[in-house]
């Protein structure tokens, strides 16, 4: 019984620890003071106005969004056929291929970012949107692959055979039978891919410039020099994007993590 | 008189608005083999889980050898369980699985291993101790689960549909083995099943449950020959049901074909407000060659279907509005075709009356 009570206290303390910094940021963005204060002193939305007036923030939000959307689309286009090939065909070197495609998950992003900077410089693409995009596609593809692959089950295969038996070509079968069945995995994989691209600093930082920059990189560069409530306002917006993404995830495929499979 | 091994008093349990147990009482004696039988959702598994301690009842009391265990957590209860999916620990060897119980009771490692080996020998798996559960067949896993549950020599073993995952042939063999093991060890078994044949062939007493209540407790013979309720009559074996009505003189009139059969034999509750139904087993409804066969009540009917079940023949006969089943040994004879007129009849002493209305 005592163990239960201790467990409960630890759990709630950890939950508080997880949420505290985000609450602090949102709170500090509303302060009427010109320095960061938490709890906020007075309430104002002035810092959000200041952010919107600064076109460089708006441009960075635009770059981040375009990059995350394009990287997600690229990841889906690469991961879907790869998942189908891996799930359906027993070709030599399959394990190696799977390891290759999944390894960006464990590879330090700093190392990959450095490698892409050097490589894209050689290709004449240094610090371009294309250089950012290829890197982001590489790091988010595993998220899509990881959530689609488990859904291509042997039972699923029987449905595909039934579809072929009824006269559907491979493409029709994919569109009418496979895609509806893996929609859940695909959606959650795409959402994780989007958000992983959206929040990335360590890969992007190598290939961004003062003009072409993503919101997290801009924040990173800014925070190292000054800290003011505008930063808190920009950060709050990214927290809001995270919240919206989670709600979207919950509404489309549902949050099945941590639920007992009974 | 010493207290019963297991004594359950007025047990109630509900899940939200669903009443799984509505006041169940039951006594189990030492060494008895009890089957809890009923359709899914009848409360038999809930009852078992309350006895094991995995569920806390809302009301009532459970005693083992006179001591209340209702408030005891499962690990303090002097009984063991064989789970439906066996619940073998996948990360331990077979021997470690079986030795788990003795180890938890403070038996030193070496002695626990010895006892586990003995228990495995009991189920014929002494050679497989080093394997992991996933390397065993379904039947072997079943035996390991059994060895693990009896290694501590509990006085009471609970079994939750332990044979349901096995195929038909293996299942029949395990039924016999299980029965022999139970007799050999002298442990009382409380065995949950939805298979009446299994219950009939193994149990000393069968507890028929329905909708959270016990309908009848009795030997297999008793519940088949003299079911207490219409539910039991229909659930156990097949039954022809003859709707009955009071005749105003303490007796009953049971509808049979176009006429009605007077019935003055024993029947539960002479209360005129209760409905009664006559139960007639198919083997007691005979095809006769004449309507005035001595000792029989007869009616004329028409053959609707003849089903050969191999060694037995089931003849479905339309008598008036009712479709009655008649079963007899042997192959269907000549001339027994659909549409053929026949005479059916039964001896009144084979008629058994229960409360509850027959379906329209």
């Amino acid at each position, binding site marked *: 019984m005592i163990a239960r009570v201790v467990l409960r206290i630890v*759990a709630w303390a*950890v*939950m508080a*620890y*997880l*949420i505290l*910094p*985000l609450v*602090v*940021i949102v709170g500090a963005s509303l302060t009427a003071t010109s320095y960061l204060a*938490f709890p906020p002193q007075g309430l104002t939305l002035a810092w959000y106005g200041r952010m919107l007036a600064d076109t460089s923030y708006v441009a960075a939000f635009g770059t981040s969004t375009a990059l995350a959307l394009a990287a997600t689309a690229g990841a889906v286009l690469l*991961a879907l*056929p*790869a998942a*189908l090939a891996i799930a*359906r*065909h027993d*070709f030599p070197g399959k394990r190696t*291929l*799977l390891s290759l*495609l999944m390894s*960006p*998950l*464990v*590879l*330090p992003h*700093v*190392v*990959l970012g*450095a490698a*892409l900077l*050097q*490589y894209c410089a050689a290709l004449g693409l240094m610090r371009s949107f294309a250089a950012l995009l290829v*890197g982001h*596609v590489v790091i988010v593809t595993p998220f899509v692959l990881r959530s689609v*692959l488990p859904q291509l*089950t042997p039972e*699923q295969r029987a449905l595909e055979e039934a579809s072929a038996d009824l006269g559907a070509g491979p493409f029709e079968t994919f569109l009418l039978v496979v895609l509806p069945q893996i929609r859940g995995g695909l959606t959650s994989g795409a959402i994780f891919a989007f958000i992983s691209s*959206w*929040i*990335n*600093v*360590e890969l992007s930082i190598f290939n961004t410039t003062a003009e072409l920059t993503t919101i*997290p990189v801009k*924040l*990173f560069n800014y925070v190292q020099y000054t800290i003011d409530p505008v930063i808190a306002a920009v*950060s709050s917006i*990214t927290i809001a994007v*995270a919240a919206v993404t989670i709600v979207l995830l919950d509404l489309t495929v549902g*949050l099945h993590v*941590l639920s007992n499979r009974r | 008189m010493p207290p019963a091994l297991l004594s359950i008093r007025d047990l109630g349990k509900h899940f939200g608005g669903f009443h799984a147990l509505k006041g169940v009482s039951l006594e189990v004696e030492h060494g008895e083999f009890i089957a809890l039988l009923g359709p899914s959702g009848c409360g038999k598994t809930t009852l078992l889980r309350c006895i*094991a301690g995995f569920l806390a009842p809302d009301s009532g009391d459970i005693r083992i050898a006179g001591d209340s265990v209702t408030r005891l957590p*499962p*690990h303090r209860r002097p009984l063991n*369980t064989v789970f439906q999916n066996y619940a*073998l620990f996948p*990360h331990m060897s077979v021997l470690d699985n079986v030795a*788990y119980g003795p180890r*938890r*009771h403070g038996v030193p490692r070496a002695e626990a291993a010895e006892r586990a080996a003995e228990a495995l020998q009991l189920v014929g798996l002494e050679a497989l101790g080093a394997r992991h559960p996933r390397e065993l067949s379904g039947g072997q896993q079943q035996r390991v689960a059994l060895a693990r549950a009896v290694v501590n020599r509990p006085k009471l073993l609970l079994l939750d549909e332990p044979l349901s995952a096995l195929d038909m042939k293996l299942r029949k063999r395990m039924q016999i083995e299980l029965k022999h093991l139970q007799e050999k060890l002298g442990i009382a078994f409380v065995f949950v099943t939805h298979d009446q044949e299994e219950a009939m062939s193994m149990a000393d007493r069968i507890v028929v449950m329905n909708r959270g209540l016990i309908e009848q407790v009795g030997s297999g013979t008793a519940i088949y020959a003299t079911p207490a309720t219409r539910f039991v009559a229909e659930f156990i074996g097949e039954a022809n049901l003859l709707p009955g009505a009071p005749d105003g003189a303490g007796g009953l009139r049971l509808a049979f074909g176009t006429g009605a059969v007077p019935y003055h034999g024993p029947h539960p509750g002479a209360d005129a407000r209760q409905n009664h139904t006559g139960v007639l087993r198919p083997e007691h409804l005979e095809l006769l060659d004449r309507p005035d066969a001595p000792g029989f009540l007869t009616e004329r009917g028409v053959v609707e279907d003849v089903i050969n079940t191999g060694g037995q023949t089931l003849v479905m006969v339309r008598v008036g509005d009712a479709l009655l089943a008649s079963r007899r040994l042997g192959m269907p004879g000549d001339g027994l075709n659909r549409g053929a007129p026949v005479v059916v009849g039964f001896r009144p002493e084979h008629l058994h009356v229960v409360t509850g209305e027959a379906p329209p």
Partner: protein
Amino acid sequence: MTAVLTTTAMPPAATAPTALRRALPLLAAPVAFFVAFFAVPMVVVLSSSLAAGGAPSLANYARVLLDQYHWDVLAVTFRIAALTTLAVTLLGYPLAYYLVRVVSSNALRRSCVILLLLPLFTSNIVRSFGWMILLGRNGLVNDTLVGIGLLERPVRFLGTEMGIVIGLVYILLPFIVLAVGNALATVDPTLEEASADLGASPFTTFWTVTFPLCLPGLIAGVIMVFTLAASAYVTPALLSGGKITVFPMLIFQQYSTVFDVHYGGALSITLLVFTLVLVALAGRIGNGGGDRS
């Protein structure tokens, strides 16, 4: 966060070459892309690191490995990573257990999962920024600790290893909670019932059944957290206040300011190799401990 990848049953008739021929149209694009923008760039880093003055050479590695400074930075980096992993495990395991096994209300669990994902879906920079506010000399943490009398005067957190660990623990905690929690959720509850039935107390059941069964999930989470902590750049950069250097900072300096791809390449490969070796060791120890009964 690590899912087990299940590969499914294959058509038995297809021989290996046939299978490859059928898979090729599907594989062409992903393989070409990953080779062009992942494998080749990594090979370029490796080959740059093995060249000096236009000729093959191990000089860059000598420069990295013979300098005590690099060893000091490596030690700091992996000490921070190890402390972070330990703290994350000690805090994350109880939370995961609580969410999966104790919380009975689905609505509460769902809200907690949302709160758990919220930081995970927020950039490291934003989350570290939150701690910069909290851990400052006049931040909430110091104010509170002084206010309740635990401290006499404000302590410096920013610019200490402690501050970096606090930030990294915060960032990596959701990973371990999800890894352990998902492993716990797949443990068949009847196994724990069987353990109790055989006489094990809840405490014994946890250590003999539940814990070993979710050990693979814990190990996967630990490896993930350790790798991410050792390769983290943003959080240490923001919370170090320029006073502490971790290895990824050295790499970043070489590529962004000095642009020495040979020396930088050697640093990159060194970090990679050390991380992989430590992860392999951790996996080994973990598996060794998994055989307990």
